[in-house]
């Protein structure tokens, strides 16, 4: 059986009592890249992931993994590895015991279990009760479980939670390496900053639907909006020269000016011709977080977001 490394979510609607958790959620996860699934708590990220895994039934819409419903996949963990909740462990069962039953359920051997234990760096604690694990160790165990079947698709819900800085760097590198090998990766987070340097694509959601579905490069370019940052000691001369050329100039107060309306090469040429000294001219850089805030500034959905998590 050939299953493509994609997740397609189309028109999902789901209501929990009076709360509308999903309101027409639609997006696609492509192979070979890390897709960030971003939105505030309660935006419907976890519910969408549960629907993808066939755990929750949507009122409307479909979620397909490689073109098929998850439930119809033979040995599903060999196609899609998932980590929904790192705390979902029987506390008195050892890490190895936890991985062993999962492996057997997929027709995998104990050898594969020992392999992922070794690779997840859990060899020293594999026979200890999982109940005594720190959140970071549980996240590692959860990732090891998701990787048991060496799946084409990996889906992780808030994997950065509880990780120390070293763990966050490791997780980002791990996600990137998966994408490089052609896997499709869907990673949810309520903090855009966590996805800096790892996500290639983001699906931004709020109130149960997609607000933006955009590549990270395009998102950053849109947020930069062609602006140029200029560092100069001769602020007033520079403003006069650039204003005469038709650019809008704002002072940032830290000795830099933001210039919009002119490309960087033209700014350099104008300043050089007028002999205005400057130490730096560069394209304006925004963080993913800033781009996210720009993007969502006008989205009504993000204002007065209900505090309640939509999931039960």
């Amino acid at each position, binding site marked *: 059986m050939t299953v493509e490394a994609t997740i397609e979510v189309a028109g999902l609607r789901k209501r929990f009592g009076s709360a509308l958790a999903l309101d027409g959620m639609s997006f696609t996860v492509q192979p070979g890249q890390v897709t960030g699934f971003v939105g505030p708590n309660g935006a419907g990220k976890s519910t969408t992931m*549960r629907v993808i*895994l*066939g755990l929750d*039934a949507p009122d409307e819409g479909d979620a397909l993994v490689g073109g098929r419903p998850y439930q119809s996949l*033979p*040995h599903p963990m060999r196609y899609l590895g998932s980590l929904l909740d790192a705390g979902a462990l029987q506390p008195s069962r050892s890490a190895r015991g936890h991985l062993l039953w999962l492996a057997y359920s997929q027709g995998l051997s104990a050898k594969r279990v020992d392999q992922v234990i070794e690779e997840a760096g859990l060899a020293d604690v594999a026979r200890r009760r999982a109940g005594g694990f720190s959140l970071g160790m549980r996240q590692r165990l959860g990732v090891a479980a998701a990787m048991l079947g*060496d799946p084409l698709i990996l889906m992780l819900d808030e994997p950065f939670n509880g990780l120390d800085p070293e763990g966050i760097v*490791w997780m980002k590198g791990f996600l990137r*390496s998966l994408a490089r090998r052609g896997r499709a990766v869907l990673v949810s987070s309520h903090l855009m900053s966590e996805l800096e340097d790892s996500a290639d694509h983001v699906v931004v959601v709020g109130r149960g639907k997609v607000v933006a579905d955009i590549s990270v490069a395009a998102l950053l370019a849109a947020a930069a909006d062609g602006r140029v940052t200029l560092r100069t000691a001769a602020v007033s001369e520079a403003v006069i020269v650039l204003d005469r050329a038709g650019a809008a100039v704002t002072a940032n107060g830290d000795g830099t000016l933001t210039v919009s309306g002119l490309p960087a090469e033209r700014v350099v040429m104008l300043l050089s011709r007028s002999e205005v000294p400057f130490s730096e001219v560069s394209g304006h850089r925004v963080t993913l977080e800033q781009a996210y805030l720009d993007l969502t500034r006008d989205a009504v959905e993000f204002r007065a977001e209900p505090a309640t998590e939509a999931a039960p």
Partner: protein
Amino acid sequence: MSGALLAARHPDPRPGRVSFAQSLRAEWVKFRTVRGWVIAMIVAVLLTVLLGIFAAGNVNIGCQNGPNAPVLTGRACTPRYPIGPGGEAVTDSYYFVRQPMAGNGSITVRVTSLTGLHGGGNEHAAGQNPLAGMSKGVVPWAKAGLILTSSTKPGAAYAAMMVTGGHGVRMEYDYTHDTAGLPGSVTATSARWLRLTRTGDTITGYDSADGRHWNLVGTAQLSGLPATVQAGMFATSPPYTVSTPGVIGTSNQSGPSQATAVFDDVTLRGSWPAGGWAGDNAGSGAASPGTGLGYYRKSGTAVTVSGSGDIAPLVAGPGSAGPTSTFEQPLAGLFIGLIAVMIVGTMFFTVEYRRGLIRTTLAADPRRGRVLAAKAVVAGGVAFVVGLAAAILAISIGLPRQRNQGSYILPVSTLTELRVIVGTAALVALAAVLAVAIGAMLRRSAAAVTAAIVAIVLPFLLAVTVLPASAGAWLLRLTPAAGFAIEQSIPNYVQAPAVFSPAQGNYPLSPWVGFAVLCAWVAAALAGAYILLRRRDA
């Protein structure tokens, strides 16, 4: 690590769906990797065995064979009971007015009266005469009528037509078989005619209210009857038992009784070579305490026969003939092991809900019915082994201990012993499956454990302790606790004079019917769990 997790893209060695064997293996690993559950199973076995043995207590049985004989204790006192043709222990003691009958033939009589005397436990204080201090009244299972037997040895094969004190006309044969004939008591105005006919090994019984219109009551096949049998009139009357309901259970008192019947119109057909009647205590009657109560007297055509004793299967408990116990008695502690098994059975499902692990389970194996089935099979299988180990240990330790103390263990066939042991294991297994299903439905440990115990252990405990026998019997008919019936080795013989109650290990339903009631409950619970699992979000 990041690259290493991906190092080997391994091909699927076993393509296809998650097979049931894989689901089973996964659930088995889940079970065995929680040490607390494994320990609880071992504890369940130990508690069952220990409680079963100590519930029997330390019985000190003493006896003395004669006024100057040494006092014996324990095993030396174990009474000997005759064994009937079916291998069961029997009471076989009656007064017999008989003569040999050669080949085929028949005997017909009219019974014009059945009266009796009985004691209540105080008669020995009245002195040597066993009749002194007794009151008038015929006990319900006093028996008098016609009997045809291979010999007068205890436990011999027989067939009999009789009137009884309170159960109308009956045909009985070989101790365990009993068929009702005409209802009502015998009085001067309402006599009963009885007839027994032999044709080869087939004995046929008839009754009549007028001597002209005869009804067939039943036939008995007594294989291996000798050419010449002993036939004639008999009377016998089992101990009188008074049951007084107490605060907890019932207390019982018993004493000897005597039945006296008057026969006339004796008609013999076939070959009766002796040509006259002889009367004596038959069966084990010669050694029984009612010996002094048997006699016969002829006046004209009427024959009066008096006797004491019984011709019936031996059962345990009050009213029975001695310190007897049953094969399943050492299993009395099973309910406590059952509680442990059911707690683990429910937790097997509920902890997954508590921790959110159920989502991992269903992501690994999205077919929910099969997850339920795999959990049920694993829990049931483990519980079966627990039940089997507990039953084998309890019986192999408990029975020799009781025998050494002087108790008589009522013999049952090997097949029945097997049914009790394997049935006990199956009972524990089904209870575990019920617990799994309840856990799947209720999802919360406390509620599910409570529900599981209320379903099966509580009705059992109430029935065997505080509830009146009739209320207890209804619980043991309707609730999953009906399955306990599979443990009962000696049937509830209507014709045995014992007091049958759940407290004595007697269940209102027969073993397999009770077991079927439990199976029905388990099936219903599994169906409910399946529907809810499919319908609910995980």
